[in-house]
């Protein structure tokens, strides 16, 4: 459903993405892995049109995202839900207003109905009774979960999660994995996730793609990646400091 071809992006003369190709299939869970600073967040921001590529195309159902005007882009973005790595919660709003914001802006729903959906989604990410809290009263993991609830509040077709389990305890991580699997089954949601959480990845991924030096160097199912002979993939999945990837 999303086809990325020859995507190139530089910042201040430094090439971050260098001719990247990736296919994201409909109703599947695609997990992007790769070292810190390799450009995973940059990649995901291209998919939703926040960043414009220097060259290359990102096609969603055959339409090139990069060529769209603001207005058309805004229509397409209503099909997406996104969790930012930083959370990006609106600090002028409380938790409930944050989660219910898109509903209020894009649907004609009554406040009472919005409240109900918000409560439901918050419970889904393990939060109860936090509706009226200000965002700066939340812990890091709570912020992340409010961000998750906000991303899925409209039951979007395509969900982009940038490190959904970072900062969560292992039990909560597993419960987020269940949430991803459940919504994918029930609503046929397409997921693109970035994560460093290997158990989480193994549990949910239909496809794992590894970003390294500006390209996807390997991709495949969990089994395929586990059995990969590529030394870079092996080193990453096994989490070893020694190998072809140098830490220093």
């Amino acid at each position, binding site marked *: 459903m999303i086809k990325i071809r020859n995507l190139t992006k530089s910042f201040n003369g430094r090439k971050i993405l260098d001719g990247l190709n990736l296919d994201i299939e409909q109703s599947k869970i695609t997990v992007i892995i790769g070292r810190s600073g390799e450009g995973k967040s940059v990649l995901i921001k291209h998919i939703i049109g926040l960043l414009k590529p220097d060259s290359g195309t990102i096609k969603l159902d055959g339409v090139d995202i990069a060529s769209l005007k603001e207005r058309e882009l*805004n229509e397409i973005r209503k099909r997406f839900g*996104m969790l930012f790595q930083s959370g*990006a919660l609106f600090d002028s709003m409380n938790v409930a207003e944050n989660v219910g914001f898109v509903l209020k802006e894009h649907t004609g729903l009554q406040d009472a109905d919005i409240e109900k959906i918000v409560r439901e989604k918050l419970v889904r990410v393990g939060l109860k009774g936090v509706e009226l809290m200000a965002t700066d009263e939340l812990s890091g993991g709570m912020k992340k979960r409010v961000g998750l609830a906000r991303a899925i509040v409209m039951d979007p077709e395509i969900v982009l999660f940038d490190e959904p389990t970072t900062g969560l305890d292992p039990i909560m991580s597993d419960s987020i994995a269940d949430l991803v699997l459940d919504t994918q089954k029930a609503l046929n949601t397409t997921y693109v996730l970035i994560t460093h959480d290997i158990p989480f990845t193994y549990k949910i991924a239909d496809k794992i793609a590894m970003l390294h030096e500006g390209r996807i160097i390997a991709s495949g199912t969990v089994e395929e990646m586990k059995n990969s002979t590529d030394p870079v993939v092996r080193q990453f999945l096994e989490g070893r400091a020694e190998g072809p990837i140098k830490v220093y």
Partner: protein
Amino acid sequence: MFKDTLERLGLYAQKSINSIGLMMMMLANAAMLCFTPPVKVRNMFKQMEFVGIQSLFVVVLTGAFTGMVLALQGYNALKRFGAESMVGPTVALSMARELGPVLTGLMVTGRAGSAMATELGTMRVTEQIDALSTMGINPVKYLVVPRIVAGILMFPLLTVITDFVGVIGGYLVGVKLLGINSGVYIGRTVDFVTIDDIAMGLYKSLVFGLIMTLVACYNGFYTTGGAEGVGRAATTSVVTASVMILISDYLLSSILG
């Protein structure tokens, strides 16, 4: 050395022209979005309260003391020609044509302009503006338009208040303190001040409101460089907007006569 300076000057000019271009584009964009539904009435009221209501205290204080000092100085100067009766019109005309709009503009810029740039700048560096975009909401429409509209509407209103308080301050000093005859003071003021004088000040303040909000929104919206960048955006906004207000005041004075 000379070449270096020249180069830096060139670079600075280039950057300035660049940002003026971007600012004009933001204004054009905002003007267009202003009339495309849905209109963000709630956001507008919130900003009008922030720019207007919350500036009342500053503006009243500014108006009162400016009017008072004008009366005092005007009296000292006019007494030499035996023209004490002209203190009233002097105060009122200065307030309405110049000091009302300009001082209101500068005070509100200091108060609300820096806060506006800081708020938008923080939203930019914490990706809140990007988050709005990903939700299919135009951030210029949601954030910039209400602020500019609030500036354009509230600056003239605040200026009226400054003018009014200034005239009262002048009256108190002139009549109660310096002993000018009350009837003469009021009579002369009414004789000399026309609607055009007041209107001129209000046109000016409308422009100042646009300048302040546009500059603050622009600097906040395009903030880069984390917390330091946010601070820079606030400072730049206040300095740029204040200078632009003073320059445009001169231009408007010469155009509007």
